[in-house]
């Protein structure tokens, strides 16, 4: 183990995550499933608890004190996330259940209204199912075609072929900022410029980026950006769609119901202002409050410090894993092109068996297709094992992972 470069006080940081402090199968937990969901710090849990214990009420329609407090905290949370993503105003932040619902919202409103027979929607074979299936459903209903940007053998988008698939017929392009299956970081600002050159809109699936780096939607210049609270230390059941106000103004509503209307008549209704037009029904109020607290938490720790620390841990992990006989890592060779996700296979040990064996030593990794079956098919595997790192992981934990892989090799004789 190398001397840890302490960009922040790691034991202190870890102590803020109650779930990290436990034994699994007799070993201290090593949680390396962060791309699936992150653990939550006390700051987030306390914000949620305090909301319920003190300020709980429904939002927007009440005059009494609790309702005032709940509304204020809910709208403050929106403003907090607006600044987190550098949106021009809080009204550009739409609360959703998560990234999946955010993408479905764009597919179900903007795309259904603007995409027609013969038009094209461009995604890539690197995408998470949540950024594939909604577009397939739009294509089915509109007669549009879903086209794909391909990957190379390092799991990078083949951007030199972009002009072959991006053209006049392309109405919208939707791509992951960072791949959850490979860790590939896409040059998303550059792609956005090329997408805008042909007059198409650009949606970014930021589920794996939001937790790890500052997202600046204005600098990226994109049209839609989606993130999930639960992957950035926030609660489950909350996420955000950011979109430019002009787009939100002209878009049809998504779900119908309370909060999103202006006037309801027997024969039809008119819609509330943006953002409420897109938020039918009682929202996940405590979830929004918790997600804002998570944004506070991450910025207090500091994204620069988080990035530097993760780089240290991931570099060490790649070095160590590369020395394990029979282990193959998928995704970009260069650390500059990848984030904290390491997908791998080990000899003929099936990823499920790897995961079971690691779990018996307290090491939590994911095994499977990672909701990215097209990625698996690209590499000709049915599944991979995936270790994904976050701000609280340590190089010690990398050693624990490597030791546990020795046990896999012992059993499978690799």
């Amino acid at each position, binding site marked *: 183990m190398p001397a840890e470069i302490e960009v922040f006080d790691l034991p202190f940081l870890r102590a803020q995550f109650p779930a990290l402090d436990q034994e699994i199968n007799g070993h201290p937990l090593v949680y390396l499933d962060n791309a699936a969901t992150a653990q939550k710090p006390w700051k987030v849990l306390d914000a949620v608890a305090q909301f319920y214990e003190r300020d709980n009420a429904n939002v927007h329609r009440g005059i009494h004190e609790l309702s005032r407090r709940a509304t204020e905290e809910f709208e403050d949370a929106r403003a907090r996330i607006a600044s987190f993503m550098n949106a021009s105003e809080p009204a550009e932040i739409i609360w959703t259940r998560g990234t999946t619902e955010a993408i479905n919202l764009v597919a179900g409103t903007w795309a259904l209204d603007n995409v027609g027979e013969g038009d094209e929607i461009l995604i890539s074979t690197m995408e998470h199912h949540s950024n594939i299936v909604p577009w397939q459903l739009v294509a089915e209903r509109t007669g549009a075609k879903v086209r794909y940007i391909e990957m190379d053998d390092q799991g990078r988008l083949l951007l030199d072929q972009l002009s072959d698939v991006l053209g006049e017929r392309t109405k919208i392009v939707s791509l992951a900022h960072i791949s959850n299956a490979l860790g590939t970081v896409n040059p998303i600002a550059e792609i956005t410029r090329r997408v805008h050159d042909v007059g198409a809109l650009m949606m970014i699936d930021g589920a794996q980026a939001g937790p790890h780096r500052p997202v600046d939607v204005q600098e990226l210049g994109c049209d839609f950006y989606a993130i999930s609270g639960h992957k950035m230390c926030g609660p489950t059941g909350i996420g955000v769609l950011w979109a430019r106000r002009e787009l939100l103004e002209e878009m049809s509503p998504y779900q119908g119901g309370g909060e999103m209307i202006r006037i309801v008549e027997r024969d039809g209704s008119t819609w509330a202002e943006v953002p409420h037009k897109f938020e039918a029904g009682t929202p996940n109020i405590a979830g929004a409050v918790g997600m804002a607290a998570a944004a506070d938490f991450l910025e207090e720790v500091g994204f620069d410090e988080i990035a530097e620390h993760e780089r240290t841990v991931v570099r060490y992990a790649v070095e160590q894993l590369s020395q394990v006989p029979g282990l193959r890592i998928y995704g970009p060779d260069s650390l500059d092109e990848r984030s904290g996700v390491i997908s791998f296979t080990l000899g003929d040990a099936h990823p*499920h068996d790897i995961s079971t*064996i690691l779990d018996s030593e307290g090491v939590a990794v994911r095994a*499977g*297709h990672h909701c990215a*079956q097209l990625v698996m098919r690209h590499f000709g595997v049915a*599944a991979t094992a995936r270790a994904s790192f976050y701000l609280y992981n340590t190089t010690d934990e990398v050693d624990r992972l490597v030791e546990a892989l020795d046990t896999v090799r012992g*059993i499978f004789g690799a």
Partner: protein
Amino acid sequence: MNEPTLNSLYQQLILEHYRKPRNRAELPEHTVEIHMYNPVCGDEIRLQLRVDGDRIAEAKFIGQGCSISQAAVSMMTVKLEGATLAEADDLANQFVNLMHGDEAAARDRSLGDLRALQGVSKFPVRIKCALLGFDALQEALKQSRLEAPAH
């Protein structure tokens, strides 16, 4: 807590069947074919039986997945060849019992190599792996009975 041990799970016999599966081949003359897929983990098995009267004359499979699912189906096909439909049914039931930690099943010699899988019962998330082939078998038996002329 008494942690379940890896040794009880990964018995040598399981790894043998995983590496060299028995009856892993196409059976063009099959009378019934069932495709089972576990969307959660991606394991899959295509089980083919040639049923002759009330007997399973041949059993083959094509599949991919983890050591547990592939070893289990391999061991299962070994037990199936020549078995009556009723015996196959009993085998499936007894194996389900084994997965649920039943002590009697663990001592039941008629399970053959399949007893090596008894450790799986201590790993709840892996039980469905072991059962994938048997799910296919039970479906195949159901279809064979439906298609068979009534006595």
